[in-house]
């Protein structure tokens, strides 16, 4: 699914004070079909907001968002989102959480459970199909969240820090898994992360956003051949990219600190 965004701005109205908060300001970029794109930027710069706009959950205040040349009008079956908080239904078992998206899209329960089986294995959840969310670890909940989106086979996969609750080892494993799955499906993917090395490992392109209000600071192409092995994280090329991106991020981090000191002024 091809993405074309021009002049996208998103403003929130703060409920208490009625003040405007500009989350994204004049953001524009294009993503070709089948690309894996990572988004990084300081906390609160509008990364989740960007994904919500693409998911059709948040309408833009200004600008144009085209998916395969058609403007976004609300959510659609061709997109799926992996939420930052796992957002599992506590009254459904792991299996029925994974099938939830399919059920909403009109797939029968038997059919949905059949399809879900593969993805449950893939996410390392076998044996926990009948457990309830409160009975599994935070990391496993996050994997249910991932499987639930993948199982609908979307043309555009939106992932909002899907691995933030995983320990480093598991995180590596899941990065490999996501890369492997993506090799097979080649679905256009937008992946938000805080970790620079995760972004480099996964991405064809990295979009770096500025501190709030989020704008595009830079778009960095990543050209490691695929399929990628964890070994590339130790190569000099990787380190060069890592240094460059952390420098970009540091500049923005200072901006955040500066903003906060301004906010704190009496």
């Amino acid at each position, binding site marked *: 699914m091809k993405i074309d965004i021009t002049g996208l701005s998103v403003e929130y109205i703060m409920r208490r004070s009625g003040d405007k908060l500009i989350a994204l300001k004049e953001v524009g970029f294009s993503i070709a079909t089948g690309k894996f794109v990572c988004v990084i930027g300081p906390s609160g710069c509008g990364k989740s907001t960007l994904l919500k706009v693409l998911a059709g959950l948040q309408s833009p205040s200004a600008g144009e968002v085209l998916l395969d040349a058609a403007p976004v009008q609300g*959510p659609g079956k061709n997109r799926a989102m992996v939420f930052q908080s796992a957002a599992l*239904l506590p009254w459904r078992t792991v299996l029925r959480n994974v099938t939830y998206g399919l059920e909403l899209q009109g797939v029968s329960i038997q059919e949905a459970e059949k399809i879900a089986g593969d993805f449950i294995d893939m996410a390392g959840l076998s044996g926990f199909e009948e457990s309830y969310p*409160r009975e599994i670890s935070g990391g496993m909940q996050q994997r249910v969240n991932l499987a639930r989106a993948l199982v609908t086979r979307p043309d555009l996969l939106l992932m909002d820090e899907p691995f933030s609750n995983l320990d480093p080892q598991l995180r590596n494993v899941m990065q490999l898994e996501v890369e492997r799955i993506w090799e097979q499906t080649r679905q256009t993917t937008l992946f938000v992360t805080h970790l620079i090395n995760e972004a480099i490992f996964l991405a064809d392109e990295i979009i770096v956003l500025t501190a709030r209000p989020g704008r595009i600071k830079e778009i960095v192409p990543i050209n490691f051949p695929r399929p990628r092995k964890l070994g590339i994280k130790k190569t000099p090329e990787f380190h060069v990219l890592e240094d460059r991106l952390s420098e970009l991020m540091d500049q923005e981090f200072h901006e955040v600190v500066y903003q906060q000191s301004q906010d704190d002024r009496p």
Partner: protein
Amino acid sequence: MNSSLSRYEKLLVFGTTIIFLTIWELLSSLKIVDPFFISSPSRIITSAQWLFAHGLWNDIRVSLEEFLWGMALAILFGVILGWALGWYRTLSVVVEPFITMMNAAPRVALLPLFILWLGIGIESKIAAVFMGAFFPIVFTVMKGVRTIDKGLFDLARSFGANDVQVFTTLAIPSSVPYIMTGLHIAVGRGLVGVVIGELLAAQAGIGFMMSRASSSFQTDKVFVGLVLLTGFGYVLTEVLKMIDKYFESWRI
């Protein structure tokens, strides 16, 4: 919680109950306190035996019938109205002040009206139970629907869920724990409704039996009614606890 009592604790509960009953029996049969006021376990048993042979079953059946009908109607309409009020903002703006006011009114004062409208048969008592049980259910269910997790809402919508799907897959299940909370309050209020209704004007029922016994100074029979009602309330609470357990995983 109670179900996990250790053997020692169970023994303790059993022991204290026996001691309590023994003291009660002794106080009464040694005439330390006049049994006219406090009856005694043995008198209650004798009295109960006589009552069961002389129509107590019918009183129990009538009271149960009143309670169950009133509760069923309260649950049915309470849950539906609660869902509707939680879901449709405009409706709640119009209707909520009304039911808040009705809930604040002393409901006992409505009983004479019910008796005028519905007579002294079981219908007026069903209404009394309904009035007690309906409001706590409406309010808790309404709150349940309103407090659906925003994240879950986004999730459902991201998969293209329509309003009906959001309602059936999110609003209904997430209101279940709230319905249970409402039921706990409603059961108590419903029981009060039965008894007060029957004390006021009735043709049968446990409350009716108690009021007749009281006006002819038969303390023992009054106590039989009291024991029955207490037992009934206890059983209901235990049943609710079991249902609570079943729905435990539904809580967010």
